[in-house]
């Protein structure tokens, strides 16, 4: 196999894949995935909220549904009413905060399980049926758990660096007469950390794509190849990834604005729909990233094959010059 050396050679000559729009199109065409993920997230959060609902609606100390004081919560976001609710010994909110954790944990495991199927579905020209989808989920689950361990290992030095930078920020802020120096430094650290995090995520995302495309079992090899791929195509890949992130945050912010500023405070149904739309968009942009990465790689491979010399009857078999990400034998 030529692996990354072929990537390097062809990166310069192959046309750059354009996966931004095609990724969105893929998410749309495979929208059933999005709806399923959305539904599972909603159900888990809803189950987590059952205890809270019981606490605030029926608890003897609060009985929110029968209290005229609850109007303070209906007609606007009353900070004091929320604080009072939180300060009550009956503690309907705080006591249920543990319910916050397990839905998040279960959803993370669920997404780890789903990733193989999602990527396979996005890479495949034809929509996978349920059996093939879940077969892919199961096949890659163990590998992606290993990848998650690698991810944690990679993040550790990043966290140490961020912590050191935080201490440096305190030093800069302490020493500087200007009140802006510290926050500017902090903003720079935040941007840098966020940028690094995005790069690391992109690196691991591409490793997952390579693993699924080539049905590879060796995750550390996938990480090496993904790193090489990213190294030679960083601009193209990161630009797609970054743009989608920005769109995700912008839409989320717009949703918050509508919720807080446009919607009537009394509108519980409207608030529910806006909130769920925001979550749907948030999940959708993440899938958009995954779809774009997958499609980027498909276009990239096609470009590479197009650059290879046409085989002649006496030529060496093409398999020996297969680009990165082809199935290993």
């Amino acid at each position, binding site marked *: 196999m030529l692996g990354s050396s072929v990537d390097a050679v062809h990166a310069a000559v192959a046309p750059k894949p354009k996966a931004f729009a095609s990724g969105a199109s893929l998410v749309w065409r495979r929208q059933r995935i999005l709806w399923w993920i959305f539904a599972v997230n909603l159900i888990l959060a809803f189950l987590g909220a059952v205890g809270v609902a019981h606490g605030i609606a029926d608890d003897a100390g609060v009985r929110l549904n*029968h209290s005229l004081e609850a109007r303070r919560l209906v007609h606007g976001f009353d900070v004091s009413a929320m604080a009072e609710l939180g300060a009550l010994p009956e503690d309907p909110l705080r006591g249920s905060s543990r319910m916050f954790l397990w839905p998040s944990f279960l959803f993370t495991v669920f997404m780890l399980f789903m990733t193989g199927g999602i990527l396979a579905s996005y890479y495949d020209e034809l929509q996978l049926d349920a059996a093939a989808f879940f077969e892919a989920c199961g096949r890659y689950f163990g590998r992606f758990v290993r990848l998650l361990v690698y991810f944690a290992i990679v993040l550790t030095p990043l966290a140490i660096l961020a912590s050191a930078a935080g201490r440096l920020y305190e030093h800069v802020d*302490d020493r500087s007469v200007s009140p802006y120096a510290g926050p500017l430094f902090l903003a720079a650290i935040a941007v840098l950390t966020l940028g690094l995090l995005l790069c690391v995520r992109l690196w691991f995302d591409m490793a997952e794509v390579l693993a699924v495309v080539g049905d590879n079992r060796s995750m550390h090899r996938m990480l090496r190849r993904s790193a090489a791929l990213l190294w030679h195509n960083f601009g193209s890949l990161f630009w797609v990834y970054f743009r989608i992130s920005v769109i995700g945050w912008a839409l989320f912010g717009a949703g918050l604005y509508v919720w807080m500023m446009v919607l009537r405070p009394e509108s519980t149904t409207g*608030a529910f729909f806006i909130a769920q739309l925001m979550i749907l968009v948030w999940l959708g942009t993440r899938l958009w990233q995954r779809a774009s990465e997958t499609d980027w790689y498909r276009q990239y491979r096609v470009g590479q094959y197009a650059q290879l010399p046409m085989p002649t009857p006496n030529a060496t078999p093409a398999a020996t010059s297969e680009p990165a990400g082809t199935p290993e034998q």
Partner: protein
Amino acid sequence: MARRRAANGQKVRTIRNSLALALTSAVLAGSSFAGRGVNSSQATAKSTTAAVSLAKPLSTRVVAYQIEATLIPREHRIKASETLDYKNLTGRPQQTFPFHLYLNAFQPQSTFMTEVRLYGTRGNGPGTPWAPRHFGSITVTKFEVEGQGDLTGKMEFIQPDDHNREDHTVFQVTLPKPIPAGASVVFHMDFEDVMPEVVERTGYTRDFYMVGQWFPKVGVWWKNQWNCHQFHATTEFFADFGTFDVKLTVPQDDFVGAGGDLITSQNHSDGTKTLTFHSEDVHDFSWTASPHYTLVEDSWNGSAGRVAIHLFMSPGNMSSAPRYLRATKGTLSLYDQWVGPYPYDRITIVDPPHGALDAGGMEYPTLITAGTTWWMPKGLRVPEVVVCHEFGHQYWYGMVATNEFEEAWLDEGINSYMEVKIMAALYGRDTSMLDFPFAQEGDAEAQRTSYLEIPAYDPLTRFAWQFFDDESYGGVTYGKTATMLLTLEKMIGEDKMRQAMHEYFMRYRFTHPTGEDFLKTLEDVTGQDLRWYFDQAAYGTNILDYEIADAHSDPVRWYQPVSGGRKPYRSYVTVHREGDFVFPVDVRVKFDDGSSTVEHWDGRDRWVRYTYEQGAQVETAEIDPDQKIVLDRNFFNNSYAVHGDDRATHKLLNIWVFANEWISALIAWIT
């Protein structure tokens, strides 16, 4: 009587809001340029108007301090000498005198630090690791008494509160000869301060200095004994009135603000300058210095004359200056109108720089420290509420000089009540703390909420250092006092309450009243016996909490089939006194035909049940429908609607579910 004092040498970079002051200064500035000042150097000419007659002091002047201090910025030290002329008005000979050395609180084994480690204090949680740069100290190197010689060797540290021998915040000296009643004694002391990096109201940050509680200060003879407590994590201060003449030698580049009138300023060839300040009818003196201040000057005219406003703004915070000024003038006006005249000719407001917010939110006579940031949103009224609160202390602590060690509620609590009233008048009842399109909060609610957190551990009247913890001290001393006074106001009427506050101020300004004096004033003004209320709200820890335990209707002829008609109904409303605080309450019961009735219950028993037999069914029952009893701990159980409305529950659940979903999605990003 008007006073005009010329001063030179104080370099200032000023923004003058008052045209009159600007003209005055321009006229005088020509003769008062400072030696090293080049760019924006300009001298201020102090134009002050004494609001009161100097012929008759406002206070009984027990002490006269003369201090000469030199700031050594490189070492963050202050070297000083102090002469204290103490007038023995105790009515008996005095031989032993205790003194505070507050800065020694910032030592590892002090009582203050032990308490910080136990339960935290302003901005520092329990177990806070204090870096050595936050340690500070004060050392008296010489102690002489006129006519009795050098008594340095006779100084001994005492610990009247906890016998912690490592605590050096109070010392006493027994003189060889007693000072007869009515006579004066003059103490001469040399002392040296090591300033901590800003902590607990005082210290330095870079080249900013906020110097408070920095000199040896004599205790107060009160209730027939010396009152000179150690410095604790939750306590503030207590001192006698008198005069201060203070000479400060600081770098020429520094802008200096102080709790006194600037009398003279003299530049020296070594790059320093000496500023002389004078203050009278006050019980403390503090000052600040920084080369980076921008001085904003303004003035306000009240019933006692003109008050100069000096606002020392730190870099980056200038956008808060108009907010500080509006709050200061508004507060001055309302205090003048509601409580009494502000008799001093100046108020200095110090805006601490970034990293020094621990020096903010503090009061000293005629000098207060505020607090803001360069990014402070307009809807977050931190600069306003801090100025309003700290200025209020000019009345409750500054003039009505209660004992902050023993009855902190009388200054912090009463001041918090006034803060609520003034903030509401200036910024709206429901928007005086937060005013964003999506969230609002009034100061009254904020005070009440702070009390709800930990309402029943301590009475208001507990000595400040004996509270359960810092949170209880804050919630009860500030929040509960404000809330109980707001409830009292609803009981006796706003006019009577205002009249009582005015009367209390006028009776007790420039004295050291107690909680009983406050109660007596209220009773005198209202003509009511209020002890039953104070016994529970101030001296006790009972919780005030009433609830509608039940409200429902039942057909009288319940045994008949529905088709036969079920009217009339027998309706029941049960009111339960959940807490031990007994308070008379009104209960409004509404029926589904639109009629309603109001019951009055004295609240003495544990519960009461009202029964009605009529054609209509009970719809709602509500305790204290006008929400007069803000001391009630739980408003949610004060009412019961027979037909539920689940919108609030849905709203909360929606937020909960959304937050949970979003956090899940964020965490799943790692996969």
